[in-house]
């Protein structure tokens, strides 16, 4: 369990992260793959001085090769369950899809704990939460872009797809606006209730027409850096029972793939509007050899904020719904992807 303090403490779960994009740091540019994470606010990539096993398998930033690099001197650290990521801070030009933000503060990790990062397909993380979530590092990337007036609107939008088609990206982050080609119907705007995460009020959670969860309202965060849908342990374990998911000896919840069609719909009510997931949406399928395995997309995580227990709506939710993050009006928009 985590009790969140004056702002928030980021919880990293990179075991399930799937979506990432490319950025460039420095002059001449050095390329990195990063998770664009609305659940944190720091930018970090591995440093060439990092000697951890995880760094050896990833691209590392070479500050001495960048003519625009500015040393900062401060240290930073990010806590993980398995240890403490350590690094030093610096400033350099950051380019995202051809647009350059000058003098961006970022971290270079010199020690990455454990072996979880060894297999990661991404090098670092680019946080897109509010500045309050950046506990140690400075101006978040999006704030820096806004300060330098690089964007049309103080808005960014995520489209995440589960479909794989050759030649088309599996997702899109649009900085500065909304891509009207990627959603249907009206946008439902939800006010941000606490400016750290992209936190909103959830009215209730309904399973097969019954609302035993969050019936008096609760808080939820929209988190592109989390894969699953997470919530308080007691509620999540009850949901696992309702969808017939059984725990394995390593704590995953597995479902009989043959039963998917009979599983209940699960509806999240946000701002008075219903967002319904079927089993095809909330069950994660994985091939193991010639066998198909089906896993629950729900995960128990106890996070307590000053506004109450938090639910986390991650990729399982966001692959169905286009999400818009509006810093100008401090609101989150959702529409059918």
């Amino acid at each position: 369990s985590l009790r969140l303090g004056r702002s928030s403490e980021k919880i990293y779960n990179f075991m399930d992260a799937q979506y990432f994009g490319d950025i460039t740091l420095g002059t001449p540019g050095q390329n990195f793959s990063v998770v664009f994470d609305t659940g944190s606010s720091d930018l970090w990539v591995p440093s060439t001085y990092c000697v951890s096993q995880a760094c050896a398998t990833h691209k590392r930033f070479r500050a001495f090769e960048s003519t625009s690099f500015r040393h900062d001197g401060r240290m930073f650290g990010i806590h993980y369950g398995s240890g403490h990521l350590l690094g030093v801070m610096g400033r350099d030009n950051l380019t995202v899809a051809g647009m350059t933000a000058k003098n961006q503060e970022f971290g270079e990790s010199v020690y990455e704990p454990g072996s979880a990062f060894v297999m990661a397909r991404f090098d670092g993380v680019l946080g897109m939460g509010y500045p309050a979530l950046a506990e140690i590092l400075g101006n978040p990337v999006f704030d820096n872009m806004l300060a330098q007036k690089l964007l049309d609107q103080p808005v960014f939008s995520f489209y995440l797809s589960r479909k794989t088609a050759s030649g088309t990206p599996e997702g899109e982050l649009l900085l500065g606006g909304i891509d009207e080609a990627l959603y249907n119907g009206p946008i439902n705007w939800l006010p941000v209730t606490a400016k750290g995460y992209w936190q909103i009020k959830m009215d209730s959670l309904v399973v097969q027409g019954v609302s035993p969860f969050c019936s008096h309202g609760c808080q939820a965060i929209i988190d592109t850096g989390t894969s699953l849908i997470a919530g308080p342990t007691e509620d999540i374990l009850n949901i696992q029972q309702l969808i017939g998911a059984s725990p394995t000896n390593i704590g995953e919840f597995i479902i009989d793939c043959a039963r998917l069609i009979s599983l209940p719909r699960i509806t999240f009510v946000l701002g008075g509007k219903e967002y319904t997931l079927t089993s095809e949406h909330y069950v994660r399928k994985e091939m193991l050899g010639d066998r198909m395995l089906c896993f629950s997309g729900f995960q128990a995580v106890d996070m307590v904020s000053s506004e109450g227990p938090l639910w986390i709506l991650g990729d399982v939710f966001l692959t169905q719904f286009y999400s818009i993050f509006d810093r100008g009006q401090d609101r989150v928009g959702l529409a059918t992807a």
Partner: protein
Amino acid sequence: ALVRVPLKRVPSIRSQLRSEGLLQEFLKENRPDMFGRRYSQCFPPGTP
């Protein structure tokens, strides 16, 4: 002033470890993150 960033989807670390038969061992030896604290979760006592 509109910047379009394509995103790629790849198998997660969990999927890679599973396909290589290393997941169980990995989870025993590592608590990869905070979510790992709940790896021992089970149904509440007294439930069928």
